[in-house]
């Protein structure tokens, strides 16, 4: 009994400490992607971000472990899976020749300080590019175009678009772009936040709110698993996600931008999309958003 308990605790700890992934490659999906990944051929200026990362031998990424389809820790394999996670691995492979990364859990409160004090090299975490944020961080990209969608309980009437959210109680994930989107589309809506997507879903089903606003890809995934959920129309916002880089580091931003252009052209970006978001969103892979030079 005691031994069983110890084993359970160890398993739990092992599951939780999966942030650092020392095993190169890992899951089959990622291997296939890495085989096509381009390598950095530019100059390495001593003291630059690329030089620092190369000397360290791994890329430090600020991100999430609990964002389905984007950056989620697989509790069985200990691998980080999803669109953001794979891009991080590919970027590391690009710079280092091996997918050596370390994920540091970032939150919307810690992202800017983590970049500013150099704790992480990049933030890849559905980081919407906004003018206010541009004043504190540099963004490479955008690397992904997303939109907020509305979901309701099946059989809900009267909600056909974002304007119908006015005056209603709307559920949103804490610290997600949904909050700003709701405020903009329906300023009189009452926003109730819960920590994670499953909690938001449960809250919706228990009647804590009449609608749930979330990234469309996540809602599509939810609806595929849950017959009680119904999506309302198409996304009503356009969020452009960027890769956060230390403010003022134009050189490294350029390197990441070039890399994004390259994988967009070679079709690797679309391949990553198909392996992750494309597993729940039907239709062909979209084209990556244009990167301003």
């Amino acid at each position, binding site marked *: 009994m005691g031994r069983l308990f110890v084993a359970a605790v160890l398993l739990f700890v092992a599951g939780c400490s999966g942030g650092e992934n020392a095993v190169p490659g890992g899951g089959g999906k990622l291997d296939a992607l890495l085989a096509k990944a381009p390598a950095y051929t530019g100059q390495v200026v001593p003291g630059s971000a690329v030089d620092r990362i190369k000397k360290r031998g791994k890329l430090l990424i600020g991100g999430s472990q609990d964002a389905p389809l984007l950056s989620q820790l697989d509790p069985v394999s200990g691998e980080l899976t999803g669109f953001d996670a794979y891009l991080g691995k590919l970027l590391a492979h690009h710079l280092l020749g091996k997918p050596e990364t370390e994920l540091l859990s970032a939150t*919307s*409160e*810690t*992202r*800017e*300080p983590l970049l500013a004090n150099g704790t992480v090299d990049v933030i890849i975490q559905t980081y919407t590019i*906004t003018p*206010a*944020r541009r*004043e*504190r*961080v540099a963004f490479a990209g955008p690397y992904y175009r997303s939109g907020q969608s509305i979901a309701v309980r099946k059989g809900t009437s009267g909600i056909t678009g974002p304007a119908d959210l006015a005056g209603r109680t709307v*559920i949103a994930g*804490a*610290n997600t772009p949904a*909050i*700003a989107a709701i405020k903009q589309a329906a300023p009189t809506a009452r926003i*109730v*936040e*819960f*920590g994670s997507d499953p*909690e938001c879903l*449960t*809250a919706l089903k*228990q*009647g*804590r709110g009449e609608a749930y606003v979330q990234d469309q890809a996540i809602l599509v995934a939810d609806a595929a698993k849950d017959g009680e959920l119904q999506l309302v129309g198409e996304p009503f916002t356009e969020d452009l996600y960027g890769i956060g880089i230390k403010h003022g580091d134009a050189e490294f931003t350029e390197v990441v931008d070039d890399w994004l252009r390259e994988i967009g052209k070679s079709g690797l970006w679309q391949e990553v999309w198909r392996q992750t978001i494309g597993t729940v969103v039907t239709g062909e892979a979209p084209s990556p958003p244009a990167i301003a030079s």
Partner: protein
Amino acid sequence: MSLVLEGFLNTVALTLLSFAGALLVGLVVAVMRIVPVPLLRGAGAVYVEVWRNIPLLAWLVLFVFGLPEVGVRMPLFWTAFCAIALYEAAFVAEALRSGVSSVATGQGEAARALGLSFGQSLRHVVLPQAGRRVVQPLANVAIALTMATALAGVVGVVDMTRAAQRINLELAQPLLVFTGAGLCYLVMAAGIGFGARVLERRLA
């Protein structure tokens, strides 16, 4: 600005109401643990051990998502109030009980030797002495409770921490925003500490 105010007022309201609730429930539990009835003592001990040994966040999630499953549906604010009050009641009960225990046993024995009943000796001899000694421990519980209300933000209540997070989402200035929120908590906690000192002097 209205968001800051809403968050601040919710935190203040949640703190005051939860502490009032915790005092009430904690008093009942403390009495249960003191009276010479084994069944009540046992029940009081079980209450304290169950409530304080499970994290408040777990209680909040259980209350918010579990109660509707069994047909109990309350607004989020009141659900959070119940969870926080019942959780902190365990700490209040222990603070009260240790206050009573701190009165030398000789005092109770002397009271009974004078012919006072259990209730009388408690009311006239033990409690007045215990009262002053529990003020600071109770203030500690109250301050811990103030900070614990931030957890309600995780289950949908717009408290001060949640409001700060929302504001930061727009401003992207976490150091500034959270220093501000921290100062609000500091003012509240300092107020509790000041109140406790005044009360302690009065009871002396």
